[in-house]
């Protein structure tokens, strides 16, 4: 079955309530997202889901040289960054898009849906 990454983007700098305006809406979003995750599990779509720490906690590692070079901060400078994601198995894009719409509503963020490579596409790559 095709596998999709559903990424949620949020502001680079979070306030004390994460990406949410106040505590109440934060708790409600967590509750809704939890319920959505439970539904993903129950319906057999769930592979993995989690939220990430603020982007300022990231470190970029370049190990291509003799010694790894470490850089504080994210790989790309941007106003918005990946804040969390789901990995789901879904029969096709229509199903994935419907789930993404539900997830977006639950977590109050835009969701990017992107397919993983498949065995077939990877083989095509090897033979290219």
């Amino acid at each position: 079955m095709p596998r999709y990454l559903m990424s949620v983007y949020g502001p680079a700098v979070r306030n004390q309530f994460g990406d949410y305006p106040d505590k109440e809406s934060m708790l409600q979003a967590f509750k809704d997202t939890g319920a959505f995750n439970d539904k993903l599990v129950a319906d057999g779509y769930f592979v993995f889901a989690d939220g990430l720490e603020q982007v300022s906690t990231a470190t970029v590692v370049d190990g291509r040289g003799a010694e790894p070079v470490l850089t504080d901060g994210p790989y790309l400078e941007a106003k918005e960054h990946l804040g969390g994601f789901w990995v789901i198995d879904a029969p096709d894009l229509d199903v994935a898009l419907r789930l993404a719409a539900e997830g977006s509503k639950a977590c109050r963020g835009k969701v990017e849906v992107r397919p993983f490579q498949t065995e077939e596409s990877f083989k095509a790559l090897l033979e290219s």
Partner: protein
Amino acid sequence: MTELVDEAITRAHRSEWARVVASLARRFGDLDVAEEAAAEAFATAVERWPRDGVPPNPGAWLTTTGARKAIDRLRRESHRDEKHQEAALLYDEPPEPLGAVDDDRLRLVFTCCHPALSSDARVALTLRMVGGLTVPEIARAFLVQEVAMGQRITRAKAKIKAAHIPYRVPLTEDLPGRLDAVLTVLFLVFNEGYLATGAGTDPVRADLTAEAIRLARLVHELMPDDGEVTGLLALMLLTEARRAARVSATGELITLDEQDRGAWDRALIEEGHALVRSRLAAVAAGGPPPGRYQLLAAVNAVHTDGRDARDTDWSQVVALYDRLVRLDPSPVVALNRAVAVAEVDGPDVALALIDRLPLDGYHAFHAARADLLRRLGRSGEARLAYDRAVALAGNTAEAAYLSRRRGQLRSAGGT
């Protein structure tokens, strides 16, 4: 003899292309394979039919030939998984009854117009896969470089495959939104033909309007009970019917009130009116209320009803636009409504409505204002509005018409 064969191939291309691509796409689960195999099948027909004669069932011949071509390609590509290959190689004839073939074409239409594709890609893909236009033809139609258009189509096919966009008619709950995306694509193609943009193009592109109508007829044939599909087809027919009367010999737009109604295509008008009447009856019998295409078709039915422009029932037009505004409160709809209001309540009332609209970058807004100001005798303001309209008009015939109108303003006064 050769001419007859050429004609048979052209006819087969027009009537069978979508069917061949659609059935190959279902069978092989890959649009790229289907498109290439269909193209090869038609190339083989061009080669063989003059020699061997036209087969008794050209569609079946093309589908079978296309399937063999697809199998050849899949055999060459070893990376396809074995199950996939087996499925493809197992049958030599499509096992489905004829009814399912129609569903294939519908699947193809919905896949090409999938909302996960960009609007440009949907249009290009639909014209290629369903309409059977070649990449150079589509590139010319949209004034895009051939290479760029080819890439646009290739990228779209690659996304369909990699993202697993399904090859099926959407579920009932998704159908209204998805069908709307399909109709938008068809309407875009039609409008690009009807109000062609670009300095070097003909003001009306009959090839594009004809293609849009052909595709709309196909979707109507596949979904005859859908009101909006019927509405869009009627709207296109009633607009196309006036095409010959709409541009003068000197390439200038002729507005509805000045058109020679004798030059209208009566057969298209009658067909369009019959479709509108069928929708009126369906709505009266308790069907769903009309959507935007049905309302626009009804407006065009009113416009094509009288023998003379003076017979136009403008209050009926305003009533239809009132309903359209409720469905679609966009300023463009409000502008069209205001133009009809001018005929019922006078240009001053209409001008007050139009002046409130945030459409400064839209040529039709300035053209409508210019006309109302002219009728109110405010020549100076009208002239400025015509200038703006001409500057923004992308259609050569429309620009020529507006320039002439501007030139006819009384130079004196200016108020």
